[in-house]
């Protein structure tokens, strides 16, 4: 009887020890993993930092203007090109009905903002 209990306890101790060792080993591996990841994050952050500087350098307004002149046909926006939502005719059918009915053509021929001699 006593022998049985002793053997049981002994087995339990060995089992726990082995389990503990296993868990500890796994934690160690995970910690190494974490450290590696942290280092990688730091390296990435540094790379992002450098890329940000490069991005800013490549997006200098002076350079963008030069590239735009060379490759695009864009000109600075003038006030004439900007109108408010109120300046738009409300619905197409009203425009058509006004166009077909010359007596009510007032709304269809609105002048755009700022145009004039």
């Amino acid at each position, binding site marked *: 009887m006593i022998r049985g209990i002793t053997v049981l306890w002994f087995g339990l101790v060995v089992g726990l020890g082995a389990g503990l060792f296993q868990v500890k080993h796994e934690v160690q591996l995970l910690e190494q993993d974490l450290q590696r990841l942290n280092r990688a994050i730091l390296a990435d*952050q540094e790379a992002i930092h450098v890329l940000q500087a490069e991005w800013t350098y490549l997006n200098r*307004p002076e350079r963008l203007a030069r590239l735009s002149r060379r490759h695009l046909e864009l000109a600075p926006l003038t006030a004439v090109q*900007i109108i408010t939502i109120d300046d738009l005719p409300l619905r197409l059918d009203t425009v058509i009905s006004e166009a077909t009915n010359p007596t009510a053509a007032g709304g269809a021929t609105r002048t755009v903002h700022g145009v004039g001699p």
Partner: protein
Amino acid sequence: MTRSGPHRSRPPHPIPEIGGAAGLRLDGLAKQALETGRNRLVFAGALFALTFLVVGLRLIDVALFKEGHEPTLVRAPAAESLRMERADIVDRNGVVLATNLVTASLYAHPGKVLGAEEAAAALARALPELNQAEVRARLGSARAFVWLKRNLTPRQQYAVNRLGIPGLYFRREEKRFYPHGRLASHLVGFTDIDNVGLAGVERYFDDALRGASGPLRLSLDVRVQHILREELMRAVGEFQAVGAAGIVMNARTGEMLAMVSLPDFDPNRPALARDDARFNRAALGVYEMGSTFKIFTTAMALESGVVTLNDGYDATDPIRVARFVIRDFKPQRRWLSVPEIFFYSSNIGAAKMALAVGGAGQRAFLDRLGLLRAAPLELTEVGVPMVPSPWREISTMTIAYGHGLAVTPAQMAAAIAAVVNGGIAYPPTLVRHHDGDGPAGERVLSARTSEQMRRLLRLNVVKGTGRKAAVPGYLVGGKTGTAEKIVGRRYRRGVRLSSFVAAFPINEPRYVVVVLLDEPKGNESTHGYATGGWVAAPVVARAIARMAPLVGVEPINEDTPEIREAMLVNIKPRGRELASF
């Protein structure tokens, strides 16, 4: 020998008999020892019992009253985030203006370098900018550490590594980098090789930048800065000016969106810059501004109530005071009303208006506008205005039209903002306010006077000297200024400082623009004129036309009755009502 007992033989030495006098004493001692022993046992037992009790209670506590499971949140050692030696500087939209880049710096341990001669030759081949003789001397020195070259590029580092010379090492260093180069050189400033701020914001915020992890956010807008700089550069080239300054300021907060000073320099190579290029004309340079000061004179006269827009002064003859003669640039030789004085830019009228207010009143008014003390900008290079002392009557008269008091363009911008924004002076700043937490500002002018000034400024662009500053849709109002520069001790004819100050949209001003050209020369396109109206006003117009859509100013139709009504000025020449604009 007697035997006292059958079991064992007595030792040869006599032992004291129990029960004798000596026995009693011994008995007492033993008892005492027993007593002590028992006490100690009880004490130790109690201690153990207590400890077990505590452990037991804690067990119960942990098992029953605390959460029974493992903590759900495992606190991993947080990844340390990247920290540079010096924080970035960014513009109001987060565009990087200054940042630190990691570089490698090459140093040597001369004792470990085998063959200094060959090593120096190889290094000079890999890094051509190194002086071979100097490297040779350094590698031959007895010291344990010599710098060979700071801040190598990755390519250079690779080249050195490829040489495989023992005794050479790299140290990780950081180098300040300005991606926008010259764009905001005076404002941002620069640092030395050890990243200590030497100029501009870099110097003013040196300590803060070294301690901070987040970027420093300036009020600057890179796009507006670029537009203003480009237009100024164009004007400098066109009119052969020796320099120029320009400012765009938010009229309602005092934030500077752009501050340009030409000529400028590359902050990545500050050592190559001439002193003239390093000089910040916008914040450090003080200038006699000329006629733009008539804005303040007129506002002051209207505010103090000595005149109304219907009053005026006789500007027929030049004023002679002491050895000075005050005359008009384009004399009208008649009585002029206040709006006429403003848009004909009459020096005589302005001087008389200032005299009507008086020197003390003028001084107090200009001081409230911040024109008599250095602007509170976040720069170490801020110009202190040159204020006449004593403030004589002749000072009052000349300052009325912008001579005799020299101020910086930055002060000018802030003062104009106060005049047009409804009368509230905000301290000019280079650091972005968080939304809605700017300083409250100080009332320096009544809303009514400010409103009248806006009408006058608009009138000047519609009919007066500032016509070239008009931009369709953006309702510009402004005033020209042309001052003769003092060369040596005298004002020199033909050596001018031409400027234009503007605000837009003038019915509800959001931005103030100040442009100043130093010694422009007239050319054919301006019929030989180099006055503010000919050379500075077009710069303002082009800058506003380009920046207004970017900063979100909505164009308005200038011909609607409401706008015409809001901008109306009645001009009443004496006796008859002639025109109204």
